[in-house]
């Protein structure tokens, strides 16, 4: 907003300007035209009309929702300007979970980097590792040499992770809207998938299992039966969720027509993932810009038509079904072979060699202390995470650590839709809208 329209007393001002929502005095037609106009393509008269409709400043109230609100999924703070129960303006304020992970990433080797990025989107850690690994492999120029089995293991893991992430969404979505039973069921089923991931990777979350060059270990004995046991148990439960929520009148009343986003708005705001698909745009990186071996698999891209909270809920529910289909296909086609690349530049020598060869021992030591060197250059690799496009922009100057590692988090960009989805709605619906955007604050703040 223009600095001269408010005085210093009205606004806590620093050298950089305030993060908080500004008072209504400056929020006239010109301001609306910029904020909304560029998204909605408003004309000046339309903006003026909207500005005239807004009540005077003494009739509105600015309240804080969060950062300690249970429905904000962590530490999201929303400043809402209310006229009675109607939301006039909204501004998300973030940064409460900022720990400087991109800066930290510059001090870690490419092998250590996985432990850092996996903590960004903590509901789908394997996707973070995959984006990081793909970017590193592209810089190394080995992206086509990674063994097939490693790639299929990666696909198996990220699809299982997508299931667990969407189940978590179903649980929290139910909890936010008042279907508390759903919370219990969702957590229960997510826990099953996490337990499965634990048998494969050794950890429930923050696995650091997908690494540049392949994965950390081969699949354990009996993995196929374990995977089948878990994913065969989920479909009947999804039917139960349909009974419990999808067809239920209260659930539909609560979600349908709430937080509507149009296709133009979604594209202009750069949204990806279920939020974009709910507006009817068929866009899924797995199908449209395939990575790994997704082009060899058969699955549907689930799209909505109204762009409301119900569509976003239904899309995620059905994406679980699509992921189960994918896991079945992956199980059928899992090839034998190596689980990581046998390029001695990237992979440490096998354990047995270390006992008999001094050079192997030195090599092993060097890889884990100094890391491997990556040729200079820059690249951007993106994958479809449960929340949208998860990209990794990496710059190397030829050293053993990334010169710059930037993660394009889908939640961070998707969060900008909140002011548009909340505008003109009721404050009670704000909870439903935040929940349906499914932001993970670890990824927003990084």
């Amino acid at each position, binding site marked *: 907003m223009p600095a001269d329209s408010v005085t210093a007393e009205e606004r806590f001002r620093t050298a950089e300007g305030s993060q908080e929502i500004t008072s209504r005095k400056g929020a006239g037609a010109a301001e609306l035209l910029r904020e909304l106009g560029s998204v909605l393509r408003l004309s000046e008269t339309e903006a003026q009309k909207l500005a005239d409709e807004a009540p005077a400043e003494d009739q509105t109230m600015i309240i804080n929702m969060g950062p300690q609100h249970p429905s904000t999924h962590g530490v999201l703070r929303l400043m809402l300007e209310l006229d009675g129960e109607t939301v006039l303006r909204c501004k998300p304020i973030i940064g409460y979970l900022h720990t400087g992970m991109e800066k930290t990433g510059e001090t870690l080797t490419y092998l250590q980097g996985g432990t850092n990025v996996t903590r960004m989107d903590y509901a789908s850690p394997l996707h973070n590792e995959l984006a990081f690994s793909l970017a590193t492999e592209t810089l190394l120029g080995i992206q086509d040499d990674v063994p097939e089995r490693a790639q299929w293991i990666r696909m198996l893991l990220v699809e299982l992770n997508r299931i667990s992430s969407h189940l978590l969404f179903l649980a929290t979505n139910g909890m936010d809207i008042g279907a508390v039973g759903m919370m219990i069921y969702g957590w229960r089923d997510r826990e099953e998938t996490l337990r499965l991931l634990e048998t494969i990777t050794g950890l429930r979350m923050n696995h650091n299992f997908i690494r540049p060059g392949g994965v950390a270990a081969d699949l354990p004995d009996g993995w196929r039966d374990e995977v089948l046991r878990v994913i065969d148990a989920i479909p009947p439960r999804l039917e139960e969720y349909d009974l419990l929520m999808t067809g239920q009148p209260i659930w539909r009343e609560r979600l349908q027509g709430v937080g509507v986003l149009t296709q133009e708005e979604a594209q202009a705001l750069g949204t990806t993932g279920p939020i974009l698909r709910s507006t009817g745009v068929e866009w899924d990186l797995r199908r449209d810009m395939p990575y790994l071996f997704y082009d060899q698999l058969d699955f549907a891209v689930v799209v909505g038509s109204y762009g409301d909270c119900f569509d976003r809920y239904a899309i995620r529910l059905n994406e679980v079904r699509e992921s189960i289909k994918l896991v079945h296909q992956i199980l059928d086609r899992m090839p034998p072979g190596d689980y990581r690349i046998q390029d001695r530049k990237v992979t440490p020598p096998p354990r047995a060699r270390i006992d008999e060869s001094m050079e192997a021992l030195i090599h092993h030591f060097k890889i884990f202390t100094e890391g491997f060197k990556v040729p200079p250059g820059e690249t951007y690799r993106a994958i479809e995470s449960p929340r949208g496009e998860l990209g990794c922009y990496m710059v190397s100057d030829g050293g053993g650590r990334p010169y710059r590692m930037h993660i394009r988090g889908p939640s961070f960009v998707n969060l*900008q839709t909140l002011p548009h989805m909340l505008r003109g709605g009721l404050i009670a619906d704000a909870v439903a809208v935040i929940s349906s955007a499914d932001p993970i604050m670890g990824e927003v703040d990084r």
Partner: protein
Amino acid sequence: MTEPVHGMPATESRGQTVLHPSRDELVKLVLDLRDDEGFRVCVDLTAVDYLAYSAPRELPDGIAAERFEIVVGLLSHTKKERLRLRVQVPADDPTCPSLFDVHPGVEALEREVFDMFGIRFDGHPDLSRILMPEDWEGYPLRKDYPVGAIPVQFKGITDAR
């Protein structure tokens, strides 16, 4: 080094097309790409501080390397194509025209770059710190900003012997 793409000097980076517009050409180029070429989505905007970069910079002829670089990622849903723009920003004048009026979705991304690198975006509606506290000093992702350093304060020592 490749032929110019969309009338801009271009390079090929690991199989990905990179355009190198100047700061003045940026907004016009992004607008043309949006309206005529179908690059309707701006997925990413970030910056790199090349202060301590030890390898030679890969830039096309006629583009002078500067300390900062703004990296814009564009995406076309219809063509299923990506395009990356890299804009050179000098250290003594860290400003860049904002893309907000073309792609409103860069609002948070530009604020993040401002917060982390101190690059100002002319025409941004609300350029304030987004991740760091609003009274924070310094720009954390710059290369001359140390990792994990805490400024030492000597308080309360009135009579130094």
